[in-house]
């Protein structure tokens, strides 16, 4: 599937997740966030940076990992990305939805 963000055609899957991370830019991330009703702040981007680091190192994301991240605690994470924080954060970060059950 394709979707246009800021005049660029982006490849996405049926859930809206980017299928090609190289197409991701911070501006596109902010557009996706807006669609989810999230206005990005510096703290949001700090979390996205953390998620990108994990993704590049091929480390699985989990809520336990967030707790240990030192970037953000779980309460803040739920406040910043309401309605399924890891799902929303990875959507904005342009990486696949996490497959873990925890």
């Amino acid at each position, binding site marked *: 599937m394709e979707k246009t963000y800021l005049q660029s055609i982006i490849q996405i899957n049926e859930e809206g997740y980017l299928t090609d991370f190289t197409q991701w830019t911070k501006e596109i991330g902010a557009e996706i966030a807006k669609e989810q009703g999230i206005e990005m702040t510096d703290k949001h981007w700090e979390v996205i940076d953390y998620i990108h680091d994990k993704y590049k190192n091929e480390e699985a994301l989990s809520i*336990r990992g967030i*707790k240990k991240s030192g970037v953000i605690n*779980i309460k803040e994470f739920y406040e910043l990305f309401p309605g*399924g924080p890891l*799902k929303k954060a990875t959507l904005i970060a342009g990486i696949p939805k996490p497959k873990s059950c*925890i």
Partner: protein
Amino acid sequence: MGNTKVRKMLFILSKATIENVYAAFIMANGARMEGIESEIFFTFFGLEAIQKKKLEHLHVATVGNPAMHIPTMLGGLPGMEALATKMMKSEMEKLDMPPVSEFLEILSDSGCKLWACKLAVEMFHLEEKDLIDDLDGILTIGDFYNRADQENTHLLFI
């Protein structure tokens, strides 16, 4: 808020074996991760999972559990439960599953409400100080039903 049709999942945990406790925790946490509200009501033996002194000492049931694939008589030998529990905990650690105390913290921080059953607390002669600090309160079953009295809410007995 998520966009799910299911809005709230309420779990009643009545057992203290590791497999049941983790089933409740993983489903309650999974609900929060999907943007669904979740709460756990700990009753009867389920209360062991929120007692400070007991929560890190829960066991797998080796007797009366056909999935262990060992004769019941062997399952009853001293040390069998401890051995099976140790093996299961090590497998869980490999999957990055948190221990009970950490899991409770994660649940509480995630906004999952944790309740103790009033009747069971009285029956086991427990006091609030025996229970975890993250507990949201002690409820009657009537209180708990009131919390379930919303559209698209599910109750699950474990």
